[in-house]
């Protein structure tokens, strides 16, 4: 209402505190003018979606310099990096199974066991000779799963377990198989 300096009573009229009839006679003309001016004010509803659209358009204009084509691949690569870095799901602790290995080798001076469970180390798991009959035994606790192994007789001769199924080892010999 710049340009209009109404009487305080007229301002009360505009505020709805009093009616035109409450005004003194000398102020009624001024009050009517004020009401006419008020009625002429544009009361079209403000469209919130329109405002939203204008705000979003402004934001879009501001965003353009950030190279939008770079954003999607960067996010994808970041996600790939996170997946790569994240530690693998901790493996469920494998159940342990106790297994007794037996080999009859009366002529042997020493017998050991080598396999996937001891990195094929021919000296890691020696068998014990039980009695004079040449029966060699070892008892191991192994994780459940698949194991391949062989006996190593006198440190040089690789012998599959005669009591277990065997598969080709890829080197012209056979590995025994243990499925726990």
């Amino acid at each position, binding site marked *: 209402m710049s340009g209009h300096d109404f009487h305080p009573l007229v301002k009360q009229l505009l505020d709805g505190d009093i009616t035109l009839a409450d005004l003194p006679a000398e102020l009624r003309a001024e009050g009517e003018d004020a009401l006419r001016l008020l009625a002429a004010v544009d009361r079209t509803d403000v469209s919130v979606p329109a405002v939203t659209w204008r705000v979003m358009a402004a934001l879009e204009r501001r965003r353009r310099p950030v190279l939008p084509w*770079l954003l999607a691949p960067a996010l994808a690569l970041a996600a790939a990096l996170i997946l790569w870095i994240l530690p693998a799901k901790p493996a469920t602790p494998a159940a342990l199974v106790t297994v007794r290995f037996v080999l009859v080798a009366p002529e042997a001076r020493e017998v050991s066991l080598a396999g996937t469970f001891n990195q094929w180390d021919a000296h890691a798991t020696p068998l014990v000779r039980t009695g004079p009959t040449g029966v060699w035994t070892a008892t191991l606790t192994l994780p459940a799963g*698949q194991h391949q192994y062989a006996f190593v007789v006198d440190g040089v001769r690789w012998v599959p377990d005669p009591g277990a199924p065997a598969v080709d080892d*890829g080197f012209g010999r056979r590995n025994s198989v243990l499925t726990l």
Partner: protein
Amino acid sequence: MIIALVTLPLSLLGMQQQGGAGIAARLAGRVSPEVAALVVELGTAASARGLPVDPLIQKAIEGGAKGVPSERVAAAVRLVVLELDTAALALREGGVVSDTLVIAAGEFAITAGLSGNDITALARTGASPSALTVGLRVAGTLAAIGVPSAEDIGLISSKLRSGEPAADLLSLPAVIQSEVARGTPPAQAAAGRRRGTRNLLRTRRLRRTPRLRHILR
């Protein structure tokens, strides 16, 4: 962001090299430098394809421990990679999004004499990855005992479909082997077990039919 884009491939490459260093560390002193270099190369590529690396390392270590010449170890390691690829493909064809354990189990089954089609058939049973892993290991072990693939896959498929616990599956090789030791042909021993599973499934189905429940009690 541009810095991130530049550094990301480098850091990924660095991590790959770390993986290669891990393989090299496991092989150090166990195989010749040529074999170690080959396993690092094949292992890094296999890992990028989602294949397990451990079977390659194990085969190389096994060859070194057995005193096998380097070129023969290299050939055996290459064969393992081929078998892993075959197993992974067969599992995918069977609709299984395979993890490294299932693929390694499939590779063992192939080593034992089963085919990619056999693996696909087992994958199509709809068994969970852990059950399928056990199924493949047991199927491979039965093949090693001498059970023909048709009977082998038929038996393991029926066991997987019936949802039998892993412990029951794992007991199969010992059971079949003891029957074979008593003179039963491997195929016949496996067929007998399969009939047993079929009867079990039939009984379960009947038990679900209320009208027949009282007969079975």
